[in-house]
């Protein structure tokens, strides 16, 4: 209560310093928040694709049971797979019929002869798909190998790009905003030098003297965090449509963006507000602590 009062006094007295502090926090948290969201998003998309059968080995019609077993053994021995599942011609037909049961025309066109038998392979890691492909490529009985190479590859590279860019940019901005807070709080300490001296002489404890400065830094962070939440939530609301149409198949994304008034979306916003303000608070306090340790002996 008292601290918010003194802070308000500070902001009124030197609005530009406070503005700079808040702005720097806002930009840092906004961009860091954006990259964290993007990282989570791309990770959940990646996880979704990872959980799908990743490699399909199709056998030609003459493939024998031994040949299938042989392929399975090669893959298992590589140590790079989690599981395999054999789909016979009959299973494939059943699956096909299930998928197209509302379309009699398509059903009629297909018999079990046309559909190949196949092996669904789950790799331990999508980056191993390429190796697995080369292992079984050309093995007797194998007709065709298929995997969502492009999707997974580009997802991996996107996720990495986002992580690295976000990490580097977030790091630089974080350091920058800590330095900004440090400077602003340092100026504040300089203008209050006399008062601090008096407080020391009349018996104020070090923490009594220091905490207002640290908390002031924290408050700038909270304000910056709250502002960036406003920005990010506007963006997520505006981008709901395209997000849903591109990524609606990913269960996590669909759950959150299904409805703007849904529980999941509201919870998502609350968590976002909470973590952005907390992040801002910690960052601001850190700047304040650095400043206090530097300028108050």
């Amino acid at each position, binding site marked *: 209560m*008292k601290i918010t009062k003194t802070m308000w006094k500070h902001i009124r007295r030197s609005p530009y310093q406070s503005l700079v502090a808040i702005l720097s926090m806002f930009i840092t948290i906004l961009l860091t928040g954006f990259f964290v969201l993007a990282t989570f998003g791309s990770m959940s998309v990646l996880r979704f694709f990872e959980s799908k059968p990743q490699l399909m080995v199709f056998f030609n019609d003459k493939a024998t049971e031994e040949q299938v077993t042989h392929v399975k053994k090669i893959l298992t021995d590589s140590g790079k797979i989690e599981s395999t599942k054999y789909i016979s011609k009959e299973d494939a037909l059943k699956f096909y019929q299930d998928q197209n049961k509302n379309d009699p025309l398509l059903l009629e066109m297909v018999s079990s002869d046309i559909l190949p038998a196949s092996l669904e392979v789950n790799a331990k890691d999508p980056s191993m798909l390429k190796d697995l492909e080369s292992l079984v490529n050309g093995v007797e009985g194998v007709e065709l190998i298929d995997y969502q190479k492009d999707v997974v590859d580009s997802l991996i590279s996107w996720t990495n790009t986002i992580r690295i860019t976000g990490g580097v940019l977030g790091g630089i901005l974080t350091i920058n905003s800590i330095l900004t807070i440090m400077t602003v709080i340092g100026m504040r300490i300089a203008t209050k030098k*006399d008062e601090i001296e*008096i407080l*020391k*002489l*009349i*018996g104020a*404890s*070090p923490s*009594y003297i220091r905490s207002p400065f640290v908390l002031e830094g924290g408050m700038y962070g909270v304000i910056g965090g709250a502002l960036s939440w406003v920005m990010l939530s506007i963006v997520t609301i505006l981008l709901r449509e395209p997000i849903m149409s591109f990524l609606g198949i990913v269960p996590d994304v669909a759950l959150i963006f299904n409805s703007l008034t849904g529980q999941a979306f509201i919870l998502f916003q609350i968590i976002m507000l909470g973590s952005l303000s907390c992040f801002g608070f910690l960052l601001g306090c850190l700047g304040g602590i650095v400043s206090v340790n530097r300028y108050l002996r």
Partner: protein
Amino acid sequence: MIRLENISKIYGNQHALHEVSVAVVDGEFVFLIGPSGSGKTTLLRLLIKDILPSAGDIFVGDWNLKAINNSEIHLLRRHVGTVFQDGKLVTDRTVFENISLGLEILGKHGSALEKDVHDVMALVGLQDFDNKFPLQLSAGELQRTAIARAIIGGPKILLADEPTGNLDPETGSEIMGILEEIQKLGTTVIVSTHNTTIVDDMKKRTITLSEGNLVSDELKGKYRYEKKHEKKRQDDKKKEIHGKKDT
């Protein structure tokens, strides 16, 4: 209990105090006198560890000041309230806020704090000064504010550094009255001054410094007291003579 043992203080090459030893027991009222530059402020600042002695030991209450580290100094300064020579009021805070600072640092707030502040303001005669700023106060009112802030936390010892420094004699003796009142409530009071008139008027233990040396430690005021009586006797005699003349 306050005890200084062979205290010397040298600033650069300036000897401010030279092997001063003195003790003050709980509840005493002591004057510290000496001309400007004799080391009064230096001695008082040593007692709250605002500065460190060049040699010697200082004991205040249960503390050996040498052994107090930086994270504990505030406890000593709560034990020893100080009225600084230059007031040291916060200029952008009101009288009320300046005085309440002495309680806020102890973690007090709310209506209990407000009541205590008003009680102390009444004690020093500052009713209705709540919203005045230091720049709007007279020298005497500034002193009262500084005294109020120093005593509000209930220190066992009160140091007052030239509290009558730039006051007219009447206000000066009012301030001394307040300090005496505080001593009667159980606080040890040490008052530095170079105003010998006041010292002579009050008849208290008086420690005299001269160029950093302790030159005397005695009950003063007797001289003045006798002089006053002598003057009265002379006046009476005159009256007597005049009376005789008249008759």
